């Protein structure tokens, strides 16, 4: 048997062990990234083979927690892909404005930057009063950072530029105050967002949602899991509700593809029509 085949077996066994022991289900994740992270984790903790990790992870919960942190990469930024935020402002918010109450679900929010961006947008459009915003992730560590709303001030310039490109009609600096090298988001914004743990693979639907925002999470899943999660989103949306995916994500591999209308092809904004 060749080396790569042996390694594939090791990866499958490790993911199975994690699932049975802790209930975290990574079995439907795209393997190439997972494998890369396993290897990175091994290097960091001086473990020589993937199969050697199995007993370690099964018996050492703290090691497992470290590993989950490595597994759920939380790279994100504010107003990533400004054109999409602009499209949201121009084509989606005017429709949402017709509802007396709006429920927004931001899934896979990581450390929260995007959730704050979205909230700023909602606020500037005058919808903050009637909006309830849930931002979820399955990584508790990332969520606790999101709740503090404290970010690296070094990024402020980039974020401010993105904000302008996203059509921001105020000044980005009005939304935070700085302290040493930290950028602290305003309390008013913080209070508007409910950060909570939710695992897209195993947890339930959010009912009666008007806008679901889930960007750069599906790319980490295989086709079957993408399909399952997109069905979950479909079920969670009200009729006419909107779904916003990452710029390089699509509904192509899902059986719910036909139940959405494409609102903006380039910015991946869809509307539930069926």
């Amino acid at each position, binding site marked *: 048997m060749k*080396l790569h085949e042996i*390694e*594939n077996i090791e990866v499958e066994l490790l993911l199975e062990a994690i699932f049975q022991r802790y209930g975290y289900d990574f079995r439907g994740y*795209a393997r*190439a990234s997972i494998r890369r992270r396993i290897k990175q984790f091994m290097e960091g903790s001086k473990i020589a083979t993937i199969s050697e990790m199995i007993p370690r992870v099964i018996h050492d919960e703290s090691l497992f927690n470290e590993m989950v942190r490595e597994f759920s*990469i939380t790279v994100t930024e504010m107003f990533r892909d400004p054109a999409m935020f602009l499209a949201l402002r121009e084509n989606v918010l005017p429709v949402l404005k017709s509802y007396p109450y709006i429920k927004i679900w931001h899934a896979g929010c990581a450390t929260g930057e995007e959730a704050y961006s979205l909230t700023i947008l909602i606020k500037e459009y005058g919808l903050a009063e009637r909006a309830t915003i849930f931002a979820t992730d399955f990584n508790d560590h990332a969520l606790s950072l999101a709740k503090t709303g404290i970010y690296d001030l070094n990024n402020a310039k980039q974020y401010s530029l993105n904000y302008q490109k996203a059509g921001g009609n105020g000044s980005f600096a009005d939304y935070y105050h700085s302290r040493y090298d930290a950028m602290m988001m305003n309390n008013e914004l913080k209070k508007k967002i409910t950060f909570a743990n939710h695992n897209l693979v195993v947890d339930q639907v959010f009912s009666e949602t008007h806008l679901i925002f889930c960007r750069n999470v599906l790319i*980490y899943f295989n086709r079957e899991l993408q399909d399952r999660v997109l069905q979950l989103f479909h079920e969670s949306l009200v009729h006419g509700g909107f779904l916003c995916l990452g710029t*390089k994500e699509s509904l192509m591999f899902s059986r719910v593809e036909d139940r959405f209308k494409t609102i903006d092809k380039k910015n991946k904004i869809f509307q539930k029509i069926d």
Partner: protein
Amino acid sequence: MNVQSFKAVVIGGSAGSTEVMVKLFSYLPERLELPIIFVNHLHPEDDGGLVEYLSCQTALRVEEAADKEHIEGGTIYVPPADYHLLVESDLTFSLSIDRKVKYSRPSIDVLFESAAMAWNDRLIGIVLTGASHDGSDGVRAIHKYGGLTIAQNPDEATYPIMPQAAITTGCVDKILPVAGIGLFLQACLGHNTVPELKKVNAHD
């Protein structure tokens, strides 16, 4: 030497490598049967510009790789700007926005390591001109899983750092000038070469 029959070629480079790619096109067979995946360190906001530019230089199909798409022979793929590109064992692509690797996203190492697992001894990996160390871990992985590795001769490269870093790993099988890489690919991938297109595009 090349009794191995190859299933895919991965190529990485940064500064100056697009020009080298264009030179390599003239050596490629008209009926290319395998995929070629080319990672170049793009500007994060490049919006399909590289695909467009390369398309004008060859009769072969050039495409931006899409998430979970099947990898087709006869196609030259490049990653979308600001995403890592990975190959899955079922020969589909995955994208990721994981941290930059050696200051780069897309990263050559990330592509090469995943491709090495997917194609093992049926893979050719080539490191071209560039001013970073990206690609050297990738070359190590391709070597480890039995693939064939080539570095552009640093003496000839516009930026020698990248091919030199690959060579320093001790995992490079061949060090060749661009023409040599072209002839080698021609010899392993078939015989009929693509007629060079007349250069009639805005980039010239």
